[in-house]
């Protein structure tokens, strides 16, 4: 067990482990006064809960995100990149966020942001691709053809109901690959349509009918074609019709599209968005770039939750934010940081019990220059799968028995 700074709140909270009982009652009554008819018809309760997963690709530097500004070891390890206390937004007497992260600061102070410290896994990989695949499959140092969210969808709805999973990316993530579900994957909704003349439409509908496949490749293609046929018009119309006064920030990496689908009453329970292209891989000249990335991320997520509150779906939605690993404690010679191990995860939203979870790893008792993780990421997944989404048996989803964190209001 790693030696770390145990946060005062943790012990108390572990006792208050949140269970499933009574959660359903906590969110009744929020269906009143929705902004449109689709939302009005959405039933409330466990089955209307939505999980939004935000991936920060490239390995976010956790130490310069949730800054331990009272820890001298932090400044010793980072003489140039260490962020001075006067330039930070303080969350409490131990931690602060970067100045651009006003959105996260507000969420934290409103009790809607859970920070899970020191999240990682045993025998960490330092490869983006490998570690991201570990996180996406939920199978570190192992493998699985399906993603953890795909398996969660299969567990929650073995019948493979339409549009249970939406992945707002140009390429489908491994995290959402499922046995029974065809995730609805799109990036630009206005492009998510079949261009055809009036005369062609009847023939195209006929072509999209059920077919007998000659092999697995055809089975796969026929399934996806059927999913496209069912979903295309709905997605495009939902996104085109959506109007919101909320500003989603300078880099809109997908949550405004998630909001549009939620507002349109999509049956989707799992959404996946990504800050793409390994953006957080800050080996060189990190400071300005990382500050911008965090500003955009914080703005975008805080805006999304504000928008959910506006359309009165706040109680039904929670957001999980992760990155494939953190970075080394010490800065490198290029004003950047190299691949590391543990980092913070975030769980945000109205139903969240804000505060600190897990233990902040020591910055001096290191494993070859890297922090020792204190919370396995599958405990964070268990929190979302069991406590939030109401999955009765998460063992097949997470390939083991992982106790959830008490990060939701009971």
């Amino acid at each position, binding site marked *: 067990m790693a030696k770390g700074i145990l946060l005062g709140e943790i012990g108390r909270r572990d006792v208050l482990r949140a269970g499933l009982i009574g959660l359903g009652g906590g969110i009744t009554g929020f269906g009143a006064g929705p902004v449109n008819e689709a939302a009005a018809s959405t039933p409330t309760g466990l089955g209307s809960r939505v999980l939004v997963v935000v991936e920060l690709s490239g390995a976010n530097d956790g130490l310069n995100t949730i800054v331990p500004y009272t820890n001298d070891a932090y400044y010793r390890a980072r003489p140039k990149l260490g962020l001075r206390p006067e330039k930070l937004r303080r969350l409490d007497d131990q931690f602060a966020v970067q*100045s651009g*992260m*006003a959105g996260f600061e507000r969420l934290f102070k409103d009790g809607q942001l859970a920070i899970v410290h020191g999240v990682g896994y045993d025998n960490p990989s*330092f*490869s*983006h*691709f*490998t570690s991201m695949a570990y996180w996406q499959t939920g199978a570190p140092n192992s493998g699985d053809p399906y993603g953890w969210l795909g398996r969660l969808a299969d567990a929650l709805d073995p019948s493979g109901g339409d549009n249970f999973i939406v*992945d707002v990316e140009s*390429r*489908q993530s491994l995290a959402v690959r499922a046995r029974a579900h*065809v*995730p*609805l*994957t*799109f*990036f630009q909704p206005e*492009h*998510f349509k*079949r*261009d*055809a*003349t009036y*005369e*062609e439409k009847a*023939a*195209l509908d*006929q*072509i999209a*009918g059920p*077919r007998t496949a*000659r092999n*697995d*490749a*055809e089975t*796969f*293609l*026929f399934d*996806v074609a059927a999913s*496209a046929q069912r*979903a*295309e018009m709905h997605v495009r119309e939902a996104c085109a019709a959506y109007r919101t006064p909320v*500003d989603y*920030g*300078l880099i809109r990496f997908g949550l405004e599209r998630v909001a549009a689908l939620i507002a349109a009453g999509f049956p989707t329970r799992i959404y996946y968005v990504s800050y*793409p*292209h*390994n953006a957080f891989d800050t*080996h*060189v*000249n990190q400071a300005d*770039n990382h500050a*911008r990335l965090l*500003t*955009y991320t914080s*703005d975008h997520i805080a805006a999304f939750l504000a928008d959910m509150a506006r359309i009165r779906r706040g109680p039904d939605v929670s957001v999980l934010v992760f990155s494939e690993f953190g970075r080394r404690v010490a800065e490198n*010679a*290029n004003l950047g940081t*190299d*691949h590391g191990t543990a980092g913070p995860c975030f769980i945000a939203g109205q139903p969240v019990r804000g505060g600190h979870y897990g233990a902040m790893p020591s910055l001096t008792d290191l494993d070859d220059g890297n922090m020792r993780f204190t919370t396995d990421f599958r405990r964070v997944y268990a929190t979302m799968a069991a406590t939030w989404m109401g999955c009765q048996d998460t063992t097949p989803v997470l390939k083991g028995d992982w106790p959830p964190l008490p990060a939701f209001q009971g």
Partner: protein
Amino acid sequence: MTDGWEQDLSSISPTDWTPERARHLLDRAGFGGPPEEVARLAAMTPEAAVAWFIDFKAIDDSNLPPFEHSGIYDPSLTPFPPTRPAATRLAAETGSAMGVDAKPAGPRRLQPVADRFFFWLRASMLETRRVGNWWADRMVATNRPLEEKLALFWHGHFACSEEKVRDYRKMLAQILLFQQHAAGNFRTLLSAVARDPAMLVYLDAGQNLKDHPNENFGRELMELFTMGVGHYTEQDIREAARAFTGWSDKDLTFHIDDVQHDSGDKTVLGHTGPLDGQEVLDIILAQPATANFIAGKLYRFLVRDDLSPEFQDRLGNLLRSGKYEIAPFLRTLFLSRDFYNPASVGTHIKGPVELIVSTYRRLGLGTTPGMPDFNSASTELGQTLLNPPTVAGWSQGRAWITPGSLLARGNFARAVLLPDVIAFADPNLDPYPSQLRTFSAHIRAGEDITTASRIVDGADGTEAQRSGMAIANLLSAHEEFNTHYASLKGWEEAVRRVRPTLRAAAQFSLTTLVLKGGARSTTQAVDSLIARFLSVPLDSETRDAAVTFLEAELGTADLDRAKTYLEEPLRLTAHLIMSTPQYQLA
């Protein structure tokens, strides 16, 4: 008849050679082609057909023009500052950067320097699109299709992106390297790539210094370029990184900085000594895992996705015993019974570039049309040449297909068959980033730079201010330069100086193609289109729907009666056929 052909590497016999198998070879060793080309290959022996692909150096390629540079580069751009802040800081400290001086006095002293920085970023980006276009044109026009198919494979294998390299010249040089060594020797190729300027920049060779080794190249070398995960330790990576210290680029050439090279002892994969980079490459090449990894990846790209570990070992042994020569390895593969067994034929999902190129080749175009735009089309389908998403390249096969990309593939076919000439706009004139359109309008209307910037930032909106966004522009409020203005000026100069791309629609006549093939009825016309565009059989319901559609459009089943107005209905029918799931397969 093909029972037991799976995993059988012995050659098929001349009696096994059919037009279907010739088409399969054309699809996989090349980018597919029209029925005439299939017939030409089918008339050969299998050995001769395979040799035509593999011994391509003997085929004349003088029809393929070299890339024509726009002339945007000059030596003052080297070394190019890593970031805009670094560029303006340099100018603030030394009085100039990138060959441009700071003004001696007055407002926005550093503006010309910031303009210069954005000019090169945007110009290199636009010129890289031209490189992508030039390469796609080669893929369509070449009589050496395997050369380009393998260059595309190596580009995905040694994936570097212009977005980070920020120099189209280095990216172009890397593609030329892939073409040169396409079916050559893997050791030669690997050794050249390790010294290739685009790769050196992409994986931070310049930061791999004796006292501060950077592991980026060492890690990807082992994980992605040679052995794959599980065959080395973190310690091997660290030691290998030391062996490559001092390896760097001097603009377009390779250079070793002796002062920065760590000549001490290292231990890599059990070998100890004062190893240098080439010795580490040779240690890695001697590992069976490397041959297995490369052989397996080539197999998955050219034959099929599923591959048993035992069979992969056999393929690896074949490649290693042939001293990493790619051509003989592929000759065995392309002649093998395994290659022609039903599990291999018609089960491959075409990648975006492959789909586009094969569409043009099957239409017999001979050149890549400017409308639709090649780069926009492939990007829409999930692949942008010279800008792979990460150093892992593109994942192949099913990963290409989503509901959205499947629709986009049908839309691409329509854009070729029935181009929207009214709505078409040259994407290279579409400002990057898109806010420039608004900003430019305000500047041209006579507004001052600061006010125009605030409007573009939404800084007048309270929400924006509260949440602390647009931090970069608030920081530059003291205005030694304005980032938006620099971005606009840089874009303007880049567009002025980069050569335009010809925007011509594809020239072809389906009427001629169908009638020349002997079709007399709507059913025969549909079968002719199916034979031209599909590599797998089309189910009878879809075929019937296409026949019914064509007949309704023509008002008759008799093509001769309709021959004066056949083209548009045939194009719509082709669009239907190319909208099927089966069109994705080869």
